[in-house]
């Protein structure tokens, strides 16, 4: 399996090298988005010269660095949401999906390997973009602490479950671009508001998405919220963490089941790589 993972990583990197224009424009779009988010968070309107964002205050009372961290997390999760559906609709009109389905690995394993490969290629490029944003705006984005990596991983696993569910729909009805965009926008909507202030519609969205609790924990751990650290150290976060873990695993397994069922249904219908 590691050979396939190696080839997936290589394929992802080669795609970027062979299509530099596509890579640069994508990175530029992320960079602009993050700069605007930082300025919005710091309550400043971006102007071309002589401007630096303040380190705290502004939009929803959130520190600009936290906003930057939140959107970096959102971009990190985006790959998980889109991966399986991109695989299911890969190269429309081609028979590549057929070829993948004939392989020794189930389609969901290939999607998982691609997700891991996308993280490998995501980390350096995102680090570069966040570095550039920090240089431009003067707002530093801290690296997540080692303890914050676990909640970020759980966040991604939960959203991977949603990604598999979207992949299942894509296997059956093919054209799911709009739905995937909608889910991606929801991830961004959640990242707009500090985890502590989620309420109303966003609160409901936060419950539906296996994202809210982990995201809040990652923020607290990274930004050194003493209360959260003490809660974790004292084991008081137990019930919340148990519920969040159960929700995340439920999403993941439900997504996997749906994806497997959709794959078998598409074999019965003979519609696997039909455009």
């Amino acid at each position: 399996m590691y050979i396939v993972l190696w080839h997936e990583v290589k394929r992802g990197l080669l795609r970027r090298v062979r299509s530099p224009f596509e890579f640069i424009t994508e990175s530029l779009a992320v960079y602009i988005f993050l700069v605007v988010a930082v300025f919005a968070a710091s309550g400043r309107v971006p102007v071309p010269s002589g401007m630096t964002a303040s380190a705290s205050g502004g939009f929803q009372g959130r520190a600009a660095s936290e906003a930057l961290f939140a959107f970096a997390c959102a971009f990190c999760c985006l790959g998980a949401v889109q991966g399986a559906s991109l695989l299911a609709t890969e190269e429309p009109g081609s028979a590549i999906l057929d070829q993948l389905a004939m392989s020794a690995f189930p389609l969901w394993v290939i999607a998982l390997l691609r997700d891991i490969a996308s993280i490998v290629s995501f980390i350096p490029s995102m680090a570069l973009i966040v570095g550039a944003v920090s240089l431009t705006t003067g707002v530093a984005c801290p690296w997540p602490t080692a303890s914050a990596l676990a909640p970020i991983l759980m966040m991604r696993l939960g959203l991977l479950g949603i990604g598999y569910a979207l992949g299942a729909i894509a296997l059956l009805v093919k054209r799911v671009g709009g739905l995937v965009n909608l889910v991606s926008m929801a991830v961004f909507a959640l990242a707009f508001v500090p985890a502590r202030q989620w309420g109303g519609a966003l609160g409901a969205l936060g419950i539906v998405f296996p994202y809210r609790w982990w995201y809040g924990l990652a923020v607290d751990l990274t930004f050194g919220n003493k209360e959260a650290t003490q809660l974790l150290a004292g084991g008081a976060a137990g019930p919340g963490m148990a519920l969040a873990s159960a929700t995340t695993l439920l999403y993941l397994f439900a997504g996997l089941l749906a994806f497997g069922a959709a794959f078998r249904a598409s074999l019965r219908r003979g519609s696997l790589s039909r455009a």
Partner: protein
Amino acid sequence: MCIAPGEVVGLLGPNGAGKSTVIAMMSGLVTPSSGRVLIEGYDTVRSRRQIAGRVGAVFDRARTLYPRMTARENIEYFTALMGRGSLRSVAGRAAHWIESLGICRWADTPVNSLSMGTRQKVSLAAALAAGPSVVLMDEPTLGLDVVSSLDLQQLIRRMARDRGCALVIATHQMDVAERVCDRVCIMSDGRALAIDKVTSLLAVFGRRSYRIALRAPVNDAVTTAIARAGARASAPSDRGAVGSFAVDIDLDDDAGLPRALEAIRTAGSEVESVIRREPCLANAFLEITGAGEGRRADVHCALA
């Protein structure tokens, strides 16, 4: 239907006959509504993992390749996906097939810069590198020029002979099937109408055909006389080139020829030459699928 190692079987049929569906069922990409497909004893539906690597597939226009990856990268990637061997052996297998199929020159060129013929060879190399015992090909020569098509046909024969691969080819190019296949299955509306060796089908269905050139234009009296002599007359398909002085006749046996020539003379026309036309798979196909009768009726109308 059983296919032996080293055998090349062609699936022939009009559009919508079910050729590609059969190929997809054999690859495990479509679940059969009834019946089953076994590859080396493994059911394609129940034992998907076991058949991976035992079956290779090549689709029309090399649609199974990533266009921005090079030929070598594509072959290595799809070989790795079959779960066969280590990183080094995957690279070794890819290099071996790149050399065997004569595509060394293009090995490190992105697939989207290659000609269709070379892409099809890359596609074949990707299918063969995992060491399959069965290779399925859906319209492998579609869209290829004459030279590339003949080249690929030679490769197919070589694969069957040298490697002992069982090859199944879905095509509606009769000449390809006639040159490449040991056996053909003629299909229509999802049913197999005939499964036999090409030579056997030609012996049974390939009619004895002659082209008779006359010194005067073919008229109603001539065609009526030919019909009375027990032969079927039709205008040449290349009538524009040969003019109205020639007529094609189909006979059930060679003994019918003297009768037909005598009938033409009796009708007042003079024969200039007679050319025997070898039986071909296309005629057998038309006979078996029933499309032949309609075609002949059309030609008779044109002749009249």
